[in-house]
């Protein structure tokens, strides 16, 4: 057997951002034993943020310049600008518009989390130097996961990301809440990983391939009677596994505790980067691997139920919360429900429930609306969590709704920005959340029997207004709860400002992002 080493080396060019970021992680890890004081830890944090920013620049500098939006299709993988690492003639990793945009989201989420947490890590006394190395490795895992088009690469990427995040959730090891959060997240996450793996093995048994393109071809060629039941179970297990990872109801039980107990910058990272990567995985598996009508019919209604449950349960329970982190956790569950509408719309089209003129539009719209929503939600949620960090001071936990009282009087600018984030979460026009929701509604309204989801989402948005505005009322209509100055630092201000600019820019001037996101719809042949 011979092999062409040059081709493997050539492939590395397409992984430069990941390779660079891995090196940054190594450097941070190697430096961590020598970091002993606050100044050293601050330098490590800024270095980590800078490293991620360089990766972001590399990502766009190297690939976005390719002709058109994201370049022409290659014969091996239609719609990809580059398909690499072939095993049995099929790509393991895909560098397409979808991957680049979502990797950018993950990097931005990582940068925001790093910046917003510099002071917090000191206040919580958990600023060990290796924190930033682990966060960077989580980003690396997420980036690989987003590019993966093979069960093997999906699983290794997913586990690299998940293991790092389990660790980050339990980073405050002297805090019982953090311990509990990490244990719950780890146990259920490991269980979900097992279910996903079981589903993958069943799919392999039925088709003889671990590759999503191979799966697609095998399903298009028709499966034997015996394989059909195997595939049904594979889809069932994978829907459950993905449901856990994206935190959809009824697989959400770990979410509130993990989000509340984790250090807030980790919560922000989980709600934005981890969720984005998990959605990318779900989209690749189901829209690429299981795109045959018979299979799409099966997973579409499963995700339809998850979507309906997630948005309803998430919003209703969020109303009852007095802890802002917990409220944002339930709100993020509700947002998963909204985002799943895009997947459901694409699935309904794949299943053949939408006639041809709208069919391809629904597939494209469904897929790109999920991507758009991830972009919009990342900025908004990260911003909201950053403001929560602002309230964490020596001796004050700062995560109760009461802590927001009188913010408008004490820090009018911050209160205004928080209002923007809240309105964006609720999906009010002129914010990113509105644009994201608009596309999701448009996709699900294409038809295919899931228009009722749009109605439900609209009702839920009304419910969600109540608890988002409850925070706004506290900020603007009540007297300050305490006199301790807010934990303002340059890095935290930068994170809040970045998130606010992102949220408003997408809301007021959506064309560039929409153009970018439209380019991601080439995932499907």
């Amino acid at each position: 057997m011979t092999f062409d080493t040059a081709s493997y080396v050539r492939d590395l060019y397409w992984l430069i951002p990941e390779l660079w970021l891995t090196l940054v992680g190594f450097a941070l890890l190697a430096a961590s034993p020598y970091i002993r004081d606050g100044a050293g830890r601050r330098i490590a944090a800024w270095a980590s943020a800078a490293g991620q920013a360089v990766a972001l620049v590399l990502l766009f500098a190297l690939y976005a310049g390719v002709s058109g939006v994201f370049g022409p299709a290659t014969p091996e993988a239609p719609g990809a600008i580059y398909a690499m690492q072939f095993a049995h003639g099929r790509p393991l990793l895909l560098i397409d518009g979808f991957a680049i945009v979502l990797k950018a989201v993950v990097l931005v989420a990582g940068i925001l989390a790093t910046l917003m947490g510099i002071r917090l890590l000191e206040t919580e006394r958990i600023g060990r130097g290796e924190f930033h190395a682990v966060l960077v490795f989580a980003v690396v895992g997420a980036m690989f996961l987003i590019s993966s088009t093979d069960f093997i690469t999906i699983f290794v990427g997913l586990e690299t990301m998940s293991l790092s995040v389990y660790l980050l959730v339990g980073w405050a090891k002297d805090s019982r809440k953090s311990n509990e959060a990490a244990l719950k997240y780890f146990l259920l996450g490991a269980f979900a990983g097992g279910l996903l793996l079981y589903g993958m093995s069943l799919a392999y048994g039925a088709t003889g391939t671990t590759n999503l393109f191979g799966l697609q071809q095998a399903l298009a060629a028709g499966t034997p009677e015996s394989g059909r039941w195997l595939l049904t179970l594979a889809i069932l297990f994978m829907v459950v596994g993905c449901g856990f990872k994206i935190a959809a109801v009824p697989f959400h039980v770990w979410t509130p505790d993990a989000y509340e107990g984790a250090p807030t910058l980790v919560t922000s990272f989980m709600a934005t980067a981890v969720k984005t990567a998990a959605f990318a995985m779900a989209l690749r598996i189901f829209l690429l691997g299981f795109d045959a009508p018979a299979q799409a019919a099966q997973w579409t209604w499963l995700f339809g139920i998850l979507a309906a449950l997630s948005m309803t349960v998430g919003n209703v329970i969020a109303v009852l919360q007095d802890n802002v982190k917990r409220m944002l956790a339930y709100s993020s569950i509700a947002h998963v429900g909204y985002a799943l509408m895009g997947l459901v719309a694409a699935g309904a089209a794949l299943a053949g429930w939408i006639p041809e003129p709208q069919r391809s539009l629904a597939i494209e719209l469904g897929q790109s609306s999920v991507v758009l929503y991830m972009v919009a939600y990342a900025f908004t949620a990260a911003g909201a969590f950053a403001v929560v960090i602002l309230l964490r001071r020596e001796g004050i936990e700062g995560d109760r709704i009461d802590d927001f009282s009188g913010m408008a009087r004490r820090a009018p600018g911050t209160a205004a920005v928080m209002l923007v984030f809240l309105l964006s979460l609720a999906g009010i026009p002129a914010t990113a959340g509105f644009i994201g929701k608009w596309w999701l509604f448009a996709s699900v309204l294409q038809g295919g029997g899931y228009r009722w989801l749009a109605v439900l989402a609209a009702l839920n948005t009304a419910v969600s207004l109540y608890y988002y505005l409850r925070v706004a009322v506290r900020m603007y209509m009540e007297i300050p709860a305490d006199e301790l100055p807010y934990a303002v630092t340059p890095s935290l201000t930068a994170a809040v400002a970045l998130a606010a600019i992102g949220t408003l820019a997408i809301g007021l001037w959506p064309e560039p992002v929409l153009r970018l996101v439209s380019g991601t719809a080439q995932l499907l042949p």
Partner: protein
Amino acid sequence: MEFVVFAIFAALAVLAAAGVVVARNPVYCAVALLVSLLSVAALFLVLWAEFIAVVQIMVYAGGVMVLFLFVIMLVDLEQRGFDLGAGRIGPRPSAFERGLWAVAALAFGALVLSLMVRSLDLPLPGADRAATMLQGPYAADGRGLGNTEWIGMLLYTDWLVPFELASVLLLVAIIGAVVLARRDQADAPAGKGAA
């Protein structure tokens, strides 16, 4: 012959697994788990997957088992009367809860059983492919390559990216162990000793 070996080790694996659940002394549980893991290794051999069998013995029966025994020794079992049942935390689950668990277990069992029944004796591309890989042109026959050679050939060429990423994964695991198990000076006022 093959079926006899399979039947013996499959039965042993299932019985030992049941022992893990039933035994009250955690050390017995660990030993039963060891028997179960070794039986599964034997099943891999029956399937001609020598490499996986060796991995099963080295990593699971060797490494993971050590981890289990260490954890058993880390936990203060004396206090709990060395009996898993006596150390229950929280209230006893109600009959309703236990009923729910039983229903869930039965449903899952039925699902897996239906899978076995419906795919028995029918052609499965995955199984066929595995069979050709292990017994056909890929099998060790004096001329061709054995299973370990094929894994080596594929893992270090086509699958090199996930392979290298796996080492980052292992790195994170080590960081996790150090961070969680060790108290460093930078931490909040430490108690006396790590125990």
